[in-house]
């Protein structure tokens, strides 16, 4: 079994006065694709943002490759090799597609080259001189994923990459995520779309009220489908 890449223990986090995470525990091994499932407001996005160091107030422990990151600033955490693709995609309107793609600095060797990224997303190559926010939703999502592949980050945090996209695009994103896993990326995926998550992930952590309340392996999804449906309220 591969080594543990990321370990989250007793993580608590606050947005201003409101206490969102009440002790989150989980871990990801190198090369795994793990999802965080849960209803709206369960704390999935907050967990990703806490790992990335974006929240100002967080306590507990987050170790990446054995290093404690709970007190680090987000630029420092990114340089350890964690990359974040936010739910709102965060494409910059004052940058064109190519500039968006080249924005995140390379933090480690081993990332994809620009050519490889354009090969993975041919649409982006065609539109590389367009303003970033002029792309369709699907293309913006591909750009948001594409730009973090170049940096050499080993752990990718993807926040709802399929949200609001047409089924055919969702399928394409699924293929890409599987390709990334086979290339050796470790991926933590936040999803509302359970059916999508089930097709790509090794394991699922279920979150509720700011805690991880259950773990389901993908091989057990069929047996646990009733339980999962009640967690997710679908």
């Amino acid at each position, binding site marked *: 079994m591969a080594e543990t890449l990321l370990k989250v223990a007793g993580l608590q986090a606050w947005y201003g006065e409101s206490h969102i995470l009440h002790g989150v525990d989980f871990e990801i091994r190198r090369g795994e694709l793990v999802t965080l499932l849960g209803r709206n407001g369960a704390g999935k996005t907050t967990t990703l943002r806490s790992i*990335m*160091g*974006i929240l100002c107030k967080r306590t507990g422990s987050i170790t990446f490759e054995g290093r404690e990151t709970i007190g680090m*600033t*987000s*630029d420092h*955490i*990114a*340089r350890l090799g964690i*990359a*974040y693709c*936010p739910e709102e995609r*965060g494409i*910059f*309107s*004052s*940058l064109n597609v190519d*500039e968006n793609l*080249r*924005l*995140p*600095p390379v*933090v480690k060797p081993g990332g994809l080259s620009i050519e490889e990224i354009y090969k993975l997303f041919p649409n982006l190559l065609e539109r590389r001189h367009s303003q970033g926010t002029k792309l369709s939703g699907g293309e913006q999502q591909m750009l948001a994923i594409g730009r*973090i592949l170049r*940096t050499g980050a080993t752990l990718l945090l993807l926040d709802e990459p399929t949200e609001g996209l047409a089924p055919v695009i969702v399928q394409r994103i699924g293929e890409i995520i599987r390709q990334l896993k086979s290339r050796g990326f470790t991926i933590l995926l936040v999803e509302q779309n359970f059916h999508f998550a089930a097709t790509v992930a090794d394991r699922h952590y279920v979150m509720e009220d700011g805690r991880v309340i259950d773990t389901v392996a993908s091989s057990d999804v069929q047996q646990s489908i009733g339980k999962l449906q009640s967690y997710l309220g679908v």
Partner: protein
Amino acid sequence: MFELLGIPPQALFGQLLLGLINGAFYAMLSLGLAVIFGMLNVINFTHGAQYMMGAFAAWLLLGIFDVPFWASLVIAPIIVGLFGIVLEKLILKRIYHLDHLYGFLLTFGLALVIEGLFQWKWGSSGAPYPNPIPGGFNLGFMFLPTYRGFVVVAALVICLATWYGIERTKLGAYLRAATENPTLVRAFGINVPRLITLTYGLGVALAALAGVLAAPIQQVSALMGVNLVLIVFAVVVIGGMGSIMGSIVTGFGLGLVEGLTKVFYPPASNTVIFVVMALVLLIKPAGLFGQTK
């Protein structure tokens, strides 16, 4: 044509040149103000004082160390830019999370303190700075002093270089991205606080550079930036807060408008820019080149 308007061509072109020179300073100063506002969200009312400091730095370098104008053009902005960096690190960075009004009040207060200190030390009568390129050209329809022509060209080069740096380079891409979404840029591994400090230093250095260029034209005095910062603020509002090209075009354009007003209706020349500002705010509140967010 000139006979029809009843204006002698010398007067018209003379005022247009003056307008262009004033416009050159408006453009350089509003550019720095726009860059700083975009990145720091602070309306830097210390800008006029920093412009004055640039002129003073050149004057003192000449008087004490015999540093020639051309060397001061590089050294003075570096000195004043470093002063800006210290200011940002010690004071400004504490107010970014507050409303714009606090940044405005703080920088306005700092300007008063700085200008007061200079006035206390060197008085307010002003000191001359020798013209580094005396002489001029007779263009037939008017006389062009060489140094003034140089200032217009230098300002254009400085403005375009700044525009290029922001719109076409990697550092500029970081700057634009961090203006839009500093949190995400930081999460990509870029040290955004350092980028902010650097931006402020560069904006302040730009003001100081304008001050050095102004020294041979104007008297070097503690209050030389006081009125200018008000006009430049109006230029930034008209061009659109945070718009780079808008600042350059509006700066030169309004200088010319002011010059023309001096020819055709001199009493309005001091207010015309503010009239334009009021009109622009009524018709297009985001400014001529600004984007509504």
